[in-house]
């Protein structure tokens, strides 16, 4: 069995460290926030201008002035701060965000990422994704290893329009955890029921098998 969506998020939560300032791509936030290790304090950044936002509000307590980057209503925590979009992206571009976790349609052997143009649909624009991948200290992609039709998403070279060039450091999928390194893609963890060969078959670039390869524990 591969990881389900919840387990991918749980595995991604293991990347958090005490004191991190973290930006979570649209769709990931609420899921991941439920899996912060006990006793660890991390601060979530929302690029529309919030550091330290909290959970969804209780019904009836929604505030139109308090939304996250996915335009969902959220809440304030003790220690929250607000700022304008320039300062917000200054935090990103200036390398102050420790970790960005985003989804992707394709990632390639050089760590380039394509995640803003959906084939066959109108180009809606990158929002903050290009800034995040260019600026965050560490960029981790979480995604399904292959498309619904079984097409590979980890490629020699992305064929969709790029969001950023050589920016991704780690890929977490339902099959595996793969690091992007100067010598190539290194398979560091795998789903328990899959073999390294299974994962290689679903991955276009040649994988380097880490000597410390282990099963993903979530």
């Amino acid at each position, binding site marked *: 069995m591969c990881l389900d969506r919840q387990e991918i998020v749980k595995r991604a939560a293991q990347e958090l460290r005490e004191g991190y300032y973290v930006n979570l791509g649209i769709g990931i936030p*609420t899921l991941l926030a439920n899996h912060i290790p006990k006793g660890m304090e991390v601060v979530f950044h*929302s*690029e*529309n*201008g*919030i550091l330290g936002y909290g*959970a*969804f*509000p*209780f*019904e009836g*307590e*929604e*505030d*139109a*002035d*308090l*939304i*996250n980057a*996915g*335009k*969902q*209503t*959220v809440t*304030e925590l003790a220690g929250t701060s*607000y*700022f*304008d*979009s*320039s300062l*917000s*992206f*200054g935090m*990103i*571009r200036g390398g102050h965000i420790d970790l960005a976790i985003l989804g992707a349609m394709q990632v390639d052997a050089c760590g*380039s990422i394509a995640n803003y143009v959906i084939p066959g649909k*109108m*180009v*809606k*624009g*990158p*929002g*903050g*994704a*290009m*800034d995040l991948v*260019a*600026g965050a200290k560490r960029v981790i992609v979480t995604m399904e290893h292959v498309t619904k039709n079984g097409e590979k998403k980890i490629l020699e070279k992305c064929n969709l*329009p*790029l*969001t*950023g*060039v050589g920016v991704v450091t780690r890929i977490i999928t339902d099959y595996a955890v793969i690091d992007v390194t100067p010598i190539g893609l290194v398979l560091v963890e795998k789903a328990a029921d899959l073999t390294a060969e299974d994962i290689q078959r679903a991955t276009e670039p040649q994988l380097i098998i880490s000597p410390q390869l282990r099963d993903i524990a979530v």
Partner: protein
Amino acid sequence: MINKVVASAAEAVADIADGVTLLVGGFGLCGIPENLIHALVDKGPMNLTVVANNCGVDDFGLGLLLATRQIKKMVSSYVGENKIFEKQLLSGELEVELNPQGTLAERLRAGGVGVPAFYTPTAYGTQLAEGKETREFNGRRVVLECAITGDFALIKAFRADRHGNLIYRKAARNFNPLCAMAGKVCIAEVEQLVEIGELDPDLVHTPGIFVHRVVVGERFEKRIEQRTTRPRA
């Protein structure tokens, strides 16, 4: 006596003519100048270039100006939530320039503070950097981006005084202070007008020097795009 307060949104936008460039604050539907947008629909200037992070939804925010075909060109970072937008874009009626969100914000800030252009690593090697000058600083490849200024800034703040000193509320700040700085004429729609001296000077977000007209919004719908809640324990 300095008094930037005008009586109505209609009066505030009375000199916005065909063909001007508008810088409009807001992120999604959060912190948009909804009363000024309604007044623009009523006044009806055409061929507008609008710089705004998004373009509203079909029946609210900047989407209203699309429905009336008043917008010629949008400069935005994400324009996904709008069927009219897609239709007009595909038919060639509407032109769109997409920018990364942080680049858009910084272009507005630069426009407001007298910096004509800047280099940024964002979008290097992507389609959005095509045709733009690139260089390398300290081993980092970067793209030259030009500042944006506009004829009018239409923004939304929470509280103002008659000098145009502004305070925003929560995440409704977003692009508003940046648009304010980059507009030749900045029109601020606010929820509350207070007496001069009542705003704590330490807490003013946009000093009145950037603001030319203040109007108290007649009605605020403050629509929520994604109403997400959690159950009470």
